[in-house]
């Protein structure tokens, strides 16, 4: 029985491709020096799926390690930074992938979340890859403008899937992260 379940899991994994996010690097900004306050670090450490936060002064960024096999929610990282009184200037997420087919403007589920690849060529992701989230309030307003102009799809404005992908089984209210590779 156990073997059956195991082989079933392996089969599903093979069909869907494998993906798991393990870490992120985040930059915060605000009216005052974000790195001069412990607030962002403390807020990020309190997020349920965060294992460890390291402050990297040289790069002016926070290195965030996720707990293994945890349910990562990148909106929670943004919320933590905002609740600490700052905003996200950059969020790069890193994960391991196996045989994940990527296509520009295609919506797909990775590690339980929907992703929309804004700029990438058709390719197969294998090994460790890093995406930059380009949704509103995950980068500067100027950069967001640049990326939102790169796609004709409405979802980059709302962060929700909308009607475009109902046929693929993605409900219109579901969150979609817009990323670049």
């Amino acid at each position: 029985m156990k073997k059956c379940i195991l082989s079933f899991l392996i089969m599903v994994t093979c069909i869907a491709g494998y993906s798991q996010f393990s870490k992120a690097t985040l930059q915060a900004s605000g009216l005052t020096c974000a790195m001069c306050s412990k607030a962002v670090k403390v807020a990020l450490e309190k997020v349920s799926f965060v294992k460890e936060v390291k402050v990297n002064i040289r790069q002016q960024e926070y290195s965030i390690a996720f707990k293994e096999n945890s349910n990562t929610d990148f909106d929670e990282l943004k919320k933590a930074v905002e609740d600490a009184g700052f905003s996200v200037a950059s969020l790069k997420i890193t994960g391991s992938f196996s045989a994940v087919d990527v296509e520009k403007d295609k919506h797909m589920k990775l590690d339980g979340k929907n992703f929309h690849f804004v700029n990438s060529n058709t390719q197969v992701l294998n090994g460790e890859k890093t995406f930059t989230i380009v949704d509103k309030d995950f980068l500067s307003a100027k950069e967001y403008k640049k990326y939102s102009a790169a796609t004709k799809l409405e979802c980059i404005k709302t962060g929700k899937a909308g009607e475009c992908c109902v046929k693929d089984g993605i409900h219109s209210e579901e969150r979609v992260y817009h990323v670049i590779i």
Partner: protein
Amino acid sequence: MLILSFVVGFSALAVTAQGPIPNIADHRLDFTVADIKGDSIKLSSLKGKVLILDFWASWCGPCRFSNKHLVKLYNKYKDKGLEILSVSLDEEVNDWKKAVTKDKITWVQGIDRGGWDALAAIKWQVDALPSSFVVDKNGDVVAINLEKEDLEKKIKELLGL
């Protein structure tokens, strides 16, 4: 507001042997850091002086700005008994040394590498930079985060000028 932040800031430090006012001789607040030559400086050894304990880092813009004021203040009052101990939370020693030279800092400089996790920063509950504490001749912490005119006024008062 100042009183409130003082109380909040010291709520955990409040229970000292001397009473409700934190004192630098208390072992829970005392620390030893390396100065620019690598010699040890013990905070409690500065008891008896009017002291500003200043936490900063080379990468902290507001700290560098504040250094300009501290340099003027120190030059004005050093002969009258003012001492400053700056503790840098820099992780890179060279960044710290460069900043000390550039900002023309001549008072006692210590480094406690380790950013927010540095022991001195944890003992003094430093959660933002710059953070500064004014200490009187008895070693009591009498003010926190005073700036410019307010800081000078307090120092003059403590020096009896």
